[in-house]
């Protein structure tokens, strides 16, 4: 279960200019150059060069309606752009489940997996908010049980769709004139609480078979999640938490010392522009060595970490220059050709319609 043999999978969150709401004031580019191809490609190139196992693309659209960054790319589409600019790191976008069409969500992620040759992941957060409900012109639902059921249904439907083409569906059999074997491409007939999906998917099974699903611990049934995300305000809390999945990931907010200023001073300066609420995630405010020691501690218990730098351009530079190199062989450095599942030691599962998979998968096409 731990990272001692595979190494620790280290992910970098790259949305916007960083996790701090005032990050844009310390970015290495003016605000009107954030939403450009050069900026996004550069972020991808730097993450790959630094050796990150994967990057995550959060979705905080509409989250900073005040003075903060008001524009956000669609994460899965931005990840697809990065799939052509990188060759090794996993690409893990948020694709919200609230009010989303499961058929689109499934096809988008499967397309990303094809385009990245097996590097796609899915940060499956509900994304429910009154703002999102209003944007979709649907009644806002706030009961946690209903929302969790909805998210679970979307993930489950997407998983059925990924398996709807068996691995050997394409036969190109000239003798019978069949490009594919219709017995191996299936309607899924998934029935959730609020929707149903007939299927099959629009493309063959993704290269990874199943795109690995990252979800906050405890939000979804364990069979729906590959990587459980643990969030706690301190190390003890992280170590005590149950990831609720086969693989575990700890989240850390990062503010690092730079040659110009200690981390605490930097954070104070950032907070004078806009407050960054603390207390939900573990936050490392300090030097690179301290962070390396923290990561070594967490590696004994976790398969992965997700680093959320306060300022991508500033903290990212220290991470790339001081922290990742110091991890040495503890860091799981991805190599071109390997999949994201490989990085987590997750085998490629048999499909639900494959003879081997039918025994393994519960018949959960209805909830």
């Amino acid at each position: 279960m731990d990272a001692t043999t595979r190494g620790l999978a280290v992910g970098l969150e790259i949305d916007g200019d960083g996790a701090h709401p005032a990050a844009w004031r310390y970015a290495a580019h003016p605000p009107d150059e954030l939403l450009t191809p050069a900026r996004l490609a550069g972020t991808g190139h730097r993450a790959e060069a630094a050796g990150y196992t994967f990057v995550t693309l959060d979705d905080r659209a509409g989250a900073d309606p005040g003075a903060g960054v008001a524009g956000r790319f669609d994460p899965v589409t931005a990840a697809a752009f990065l799939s052509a600019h990188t060759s090794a790191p996993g690409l893990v976008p948020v694709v919200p489940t609230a009010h989303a069409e499961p058929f689109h969500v499934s096809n988008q992620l499967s397309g990303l997996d094809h385009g990245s040759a097996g590097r796609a992941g899915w940060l499956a957060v509900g994304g429910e908010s009154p703002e999102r409900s209003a944007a979709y012109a649907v009644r806002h639902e706030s009961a946690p049980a209903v929302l969790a059921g909805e998210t679970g249904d979307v993930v489950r439907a997407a998983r059925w769709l990924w398996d709807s083409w068996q691995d050997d569906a394409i036969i190109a059999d000239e003798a019978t004139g069949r490009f594919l074997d219709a017995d191996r491409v299936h309607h899924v007939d998934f029935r959730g609480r609020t929707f149903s999906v007939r299927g099959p998917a629009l493309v063959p099974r993704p290269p990874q078979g199943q795109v690995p699903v990252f979800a906050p611990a405890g939000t979804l049934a364990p069979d729906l999640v590959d990587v459980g995300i643990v969030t706690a305000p301190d190390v003890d809390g992280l170590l005590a938490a149950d990831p609720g999945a086969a693989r575990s990931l700890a989240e850390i907010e990062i503010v690092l010392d730079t040659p110009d200023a200690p981390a605490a001073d930097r954070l104070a300066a950032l907070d004078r522009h806009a407050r960054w609420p603390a207390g939900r995630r573990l936050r490392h405010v300090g030097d690179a060595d301290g962070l390396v020691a923290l990561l070594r501690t967490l590696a004994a218990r976790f398969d992965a970490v997700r680093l959320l730098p306060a300022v991508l351009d500033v903290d990212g530079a220290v991470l790339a220059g001081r922290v990742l190199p110091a991890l040495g062989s503890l860091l799981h450095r991805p190599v071109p050709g390997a999949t994201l599942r490989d990085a987590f030691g997750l085998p490629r599962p048999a499909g639900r319609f494959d003879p081997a998979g039918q025994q393994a998968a519960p018949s959960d096409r209805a909830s």
Partner: protein
Amino acid sequence: MAAPEPARPHAHLHLAGFFGFGPAYVWSEAPGPHVYYDFAAWRRLAATAERGLFSTLFLGDSQRLREHLGRVTDHSVTGRPDQLVLFAHLAAVTERIGLVATLNTTFTDPADLARRLSTVDLLSGGRAGWNVVTTDNDWTGENFRRGAEVTHDDRYRHAAEHLGTVEALWSGWPPGAVADATDAPAWSRPAAITPVVRGARRARPALPPSAQGRPVLFQAGESPQGREFAARHAQGVFSRYLRFDEALAFADDLRARLVRHGRPADDIRIFPATRVILGDTDAEAREKAAWFRDRTWSERRIRSVVEAVWGHDLSDHDVDGPLPASDPVAATQTLTHGVVNTSDRPLRTAAAWRELAAARGFSMRDLVLHLNDAVEFVGTPSAVADELTRYVRAGALDGLNLQPNAVPDGFDDVVDRLVPALQDRGAYRTAYEGTTLRENLGLLPAVADRAPAVPG
């Protein structure tokens, strides 16, 4: 007698690389059957098209795999990656070529669609286009929450509402709203980015305008409502009219409608879909075209066209024999599942086909090939270039939605042989005019970015 001066003596032909949802390929000749889903093959096709100065790539769409007698259609390549995922990937490896996606208003949320299209538009430096389509069948709706029935008459109204919301979201973020320095008072000018409120919907624009303002709108319907929709909103049209007189009549009608809506007559680009097959001699080109037709119209595919109307398996019928003597099993057929549209009247279709087959002495194969006879440009590069130059200079079309005959090398012949012949005639660009799709199509700003010319 000298030929009359053409209507547009200096017009250039635009080429678009077109990919339908269920394209005909000789898949047995492919380097491997998975090539059709391989992003490397898409990159190769895009690179060739860009080398040939194509104006754009253009994807057709379906949101459900085609089916035949209740099962997925098996005789042809089917399925394609999510269009905007594919285009975001291709945006990273191309520089000038446009990226036009066919996106359905019935099954997408306008705020979601506006943001995803803008993402591709920004990441490509202003090269995105949207071919606006609607679907009115429950069959596709079975894949969606929003599968509710929209009647045919309602669907242009529904599409117009959807498009209106998307356009309002794009208009809601004006140019120059984002600060140009990190010490500005705020990231964006206060109140410059305005939310869109429509009924219960309240959405915030997600992204700034691109180098071309907003994606170029295309439209694909040929009905009077579809043409009106195009005349109001679109700057590109996907059409099927290729016989010269029909193409010219369609183009003239469309341009007249534009003028009635206060737009310049040439503020639209018409792209019929076709194939080009080239040879060193006319005979060689015709031989290649016949080979391609015979190989893509397999017995299984021919039989499936007839089975779709008769409603049952006909594998015991010889395709070189007559149509079945029995009648279709069902009086109604749900639309668009297969390769024929019988307008929901199998018995009537069967009767019409029988009459035609009897009059012309057609076998099943002859009939199906006749029904699917399409206008294609077959000949030497020089002859095809002459013909296309005539079309474009007469104003019968502006471009071709060119279907490749193979993956990944299906554009090589056109780029290497037809494009130079067109350039020799002054009927094709020798360099991209600009960096955006709008510039390379020679278009004005989007209709929604202009002051209204006609009240109401």
